[in-house]
């Protein structure tokens, strides 16, 4: 299982590096403009984010003793997976079609918003799980 994941991760890294080299080569040969090359790489990054986020809800980890904790983990992974997948697709779409200046700012904003949603939901879901009284309870 771990070997399979590692293989996929290495294959993806090789693909990204090869793509970057291919785009740079195409730019140097005059086949691609600087803008087109930049857009191509950013679209690939957005699709990669969407691809990884798509699998996020499947990363359940070990089974937890509490059914409530398990349900909260499941919900947090789903919310994070959906928000980051949509952010990745939006990121790719902005770099594919939007004016460069707009794509530059909006793409970062979209991904940042998705990360805030992911982190915020996880915090909200797990805050009630903290022991009551904090350190005072251990005295």
């Amino acid at each position, binding site marked *: 299982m771990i070997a399979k994941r590692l293989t996929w991760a290495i294959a993806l890294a090789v693909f990204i590096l090869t793509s970057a080299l291919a785009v740079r080569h195409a730019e140097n040969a005059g086949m691609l403009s600087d803008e087109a090359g930049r857009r191509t790489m950013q679209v690939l990054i957005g699709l990669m984010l969407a691809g990884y986020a798509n699998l996020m809800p499947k990363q359940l980890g070990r*089974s937890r003793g509490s*059914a409530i904790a398990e349900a909260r983990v*499941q919900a947090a992974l*789903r919310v994070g*997976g*959906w928000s980051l997948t949509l952010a990745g697709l939006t990121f790719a779409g902005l770099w594919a079609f939007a004016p460069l200046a707009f794509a530059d700012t909006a793409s970062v904003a979209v991904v940042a918003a998705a990360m805030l949603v992911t982190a915020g939901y996880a915090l909200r879901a797990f805050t009630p799980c903290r022991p009551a009284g904090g350190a005072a309870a251990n005295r």
Partner: protein
Amino acid sequence: MNKVFKALADPTRRRVLELLRQRPMTAGELSEHFAVSKPTMSAHFAVLREADLIDAHKQGTTITYRLKLSVLEEALLGFSQAFGIGAASPARDAPQPEKETP
């Protein structure tokens, strides 16, 4: 991907996934929601496990199932539910449990 489509084509299995969306459940808790035999439900669970849509954790004699849908698979589930794919023949499409030979 074929296994995923096969798993999502049956309305009973889709209902199982909907129930697991609320919280993890044991095989017994899930079976209570359906008017089919336990061997038939076990066969449905096996199809879902083979498609990697649910995760099974065994503690003693109890098996607890957890939902394990990717974003794309969840979207496909919603699409299947919206268009009622396979709604006409849930009983016919139920996988037959293997018969034990003495």
